[in-house]
């Protein structure tokens, strides 16, 4: 595809978006495999065991979302700073380095899989800590590529102009990268290990990522709905205050049972219970803006996915998170399918949605058009169906996992006392198995949705240039 008409940052963004969507597909394939291994435990047993398929599933997710975020920021960089990106060549180099590193890490996960209990394994094979399994050399590579990205962002804004959105964004990126360092050391002490591990995981998804997508949302609403910058910026500050105000100490909801002192039960319970508030504020914001403009924007798929983000974030993180965040409940739900239920709806609802929205914002520009209105030649059935199927699939999986999670928390956790036998008495219960079956059925629906999504992104708006020109003339 010819992309010369795009600005430098946007050309970089297209690269990142392409890898993001490819990894999204990989994530789903390995998710399907992990899910199947619950129902057919002999599937790939001894070859591609559950720990391998699952690790690829969640790491592909983390990486594609990060690629989506980087792409989104590069996409808006020149427009928001009103100048040219300072380090295009460097940015391109970093893209290729990062992408090769990701490819090597995935291949090692699949082919080498594990190693002996020595430092070599942690440096070059697998670190064995959920979400950040990537070996240490890759951590360092990632940090260097992130520094290049950060340089491009900060230096471009400094050369051009700063705005409320870019200020929040840049500071947030500092925090996001800094927090990653908390996961980069070894300790024999599992309590200390998990204490810092949660800094990375929680302070990413419930603080810095949340603020990052707040910036993207603010920019997206201005772009798609032409909302006033002043209003959007004020909302952004309100959201930052509420999100960091609750999310930073909300970290305590992971410090109930890992050896940490009892005061975390109170602090973690209290502050994490406040975390849904900013998420409600975001729904109000998005829905109000969309309503005030009678749902009329210049890009219907993007608008639909922005609204899906607002609701997905609220339900997945806010409601599903709140349901198990009080220690009185978490004692029984901790580490059960409840967590998986919440994890799926939250990551999809809060993050996958907004990356997809940002990609839809980019698509018409890539094809040299103004927008994606309601006048698509085929009625836009592909984006509508993929939107419907993806959301229905993930919500269906979430509900199925929740039912299994309820059963597990009663039978294994409360009654069975979480012993080996107690664990399996819950896993073999028909209600649990039914939940796993429905998860697969909705997982397949999700997969159809993603096939349509890829197809749509590759084709939407193609060959519409002439038609569009006529219309703009008619309007004029």
């Amino acid at each position: 595809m010819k992309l010369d008409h795009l600005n430098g940052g946007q050309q970089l963004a297209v690269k990142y978006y392409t890898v993001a969507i490819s990894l999204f597909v990989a994530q789903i394939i390995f998710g399907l495999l992990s899910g199947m291994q619950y129902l057919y435990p002999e599937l790939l047993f001894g070859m591609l065991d559950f720990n391998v398929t699952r690790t690829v599933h969640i790491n592909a997710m983390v990486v594609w979302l990060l690629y989506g975020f980087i792409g989104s920021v590069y996409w808006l960089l020149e427009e928001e700073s009103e100048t040219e990106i300072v380090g295009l060549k460097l940015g391109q180099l970093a893209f290729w380095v990062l992408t090769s590193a990701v490819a090597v890490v995935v291949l090692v996960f699949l082919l080498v899989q594990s190693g002996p209990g020595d430092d070599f394994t942690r440096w070059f094979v697998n670190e064995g800590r959920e979400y950040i399994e990537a070996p240490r050399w890759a951590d360092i590579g990632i940090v260097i590529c992130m520094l290049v990205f950060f340089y491009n962002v900060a230096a471009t804004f400094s050369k051009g102009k700063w705005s409320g959105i870019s200020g929040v964004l840049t500071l947030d990126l500092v925090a996001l990268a800094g927090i990653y360092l908390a996961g980069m050391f070894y300790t024999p002490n599992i309590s200390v290990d998990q204490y810092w591990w949660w800094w990375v995981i929680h302070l990413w998804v419930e603080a810095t990522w949340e603020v990052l997508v707040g910036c993207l949302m603010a920019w997206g609403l201005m772009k798609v709905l032409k909302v006033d910058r002043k209003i959007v910026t004020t909302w952004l500050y309100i959201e930052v205050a509420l999100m960091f105000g609750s999310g930073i100490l909300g970290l305590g909801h992971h410090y109930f049972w890992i050896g940490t002192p009892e005061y975390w039960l109170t602090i973690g319970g209290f502050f994490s219970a406040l975390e849904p508030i900013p998420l409600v504020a975001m729904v109000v914001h998005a829905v109000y803006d969309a309503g005030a403009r009678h749902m009329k924007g210049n890009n219907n798929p993007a608008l639909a996915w922005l609204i899906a983000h607002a609701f997905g974030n609220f339900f997945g993180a806010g409601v599903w998170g709140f349901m198990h965040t009080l220690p009185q409940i978490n004692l029984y739900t901790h580490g059960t399918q409840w967590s998986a239920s919440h994890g799926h709806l939250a990551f999809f609802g809060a993050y996958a949605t907004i990356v997809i929205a940002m990609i839809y914002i980019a698509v018409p520009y890539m094809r040299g058009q103004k927008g994606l209105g309601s006048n698509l030649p085929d009625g836009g059935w592909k984006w509508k169906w993929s939107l419907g199927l993806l959301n229905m699939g993930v919500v269906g999986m979430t509900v199925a996992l929740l039912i299994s999670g309820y059963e597990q928390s009663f039978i294994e956790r409360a009654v069975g006392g979480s012993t080996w036998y107690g664990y399996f008495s819950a896993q073999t219960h028909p209600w649990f198995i039914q939940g796993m079956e429905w998860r697969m059925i909705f997982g397949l629906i999700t997969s159809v949705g993603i096939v349509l999504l890829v197809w749509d992104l590759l084709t939407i708006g193609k060959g519409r240039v002439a038609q569009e020109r006529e219309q703009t003339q008619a309007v004029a």
Partner: protein
Amino acid sequence: MNNATPWWSSEVFWKKTAIWVTGSMFVVLIILTLDSIPKITAGSERVPAYSVINKHIDYKFNDERNIQVPLIGGEDPLFGKMLSEEEAEALVSYGKKITQGRNCMGCHTLLGNGSYFAPDLTKAWLDPGWSSEEEREEMMIAFLMDPVENARSFGSGRMMPNLHLSRGEAMAVVAFLKWMSSIDTNGFPYNFTVIDKEG
């Protein structure tokens, strides 16, 4: 000009609020971290020293706290061998590195965090599945070295794959599991039945 926009909807007000709130929350987190880390350092009350593997470990109901808490008893050296603090740390650390290198967390939860495909290992050392305290050590080693041959699965068909642990590696893993079971986890897991106990 001062009442063009009310103070509560002005951009500057919220900008300042955002900065102050974020800054103070972060400071509080740092203070709490400075308090918590010493309390979870090995050798503290809540997280015993690695040499606790020389002792008998139990998990008993505590009336005052209304939860089960680990109870460190008399001498009960792992594999019949008393270890110095350094030796114990080295062994537990080796065990932990093996759990990371083999990605046990890709199937199991440790302290409730990880994956949900296999039982939580927080109190695996105390699990009644190991028959009795006399047979426990050998059974654990046999299981870890060949989980397929020694599979239980309880009718689920789900097995742990053979991760090719040597005897030495399995012993280190058991040391790590024994040490982990001594951590005071505020009563998680709830209602756990301990080995060698009649309900």
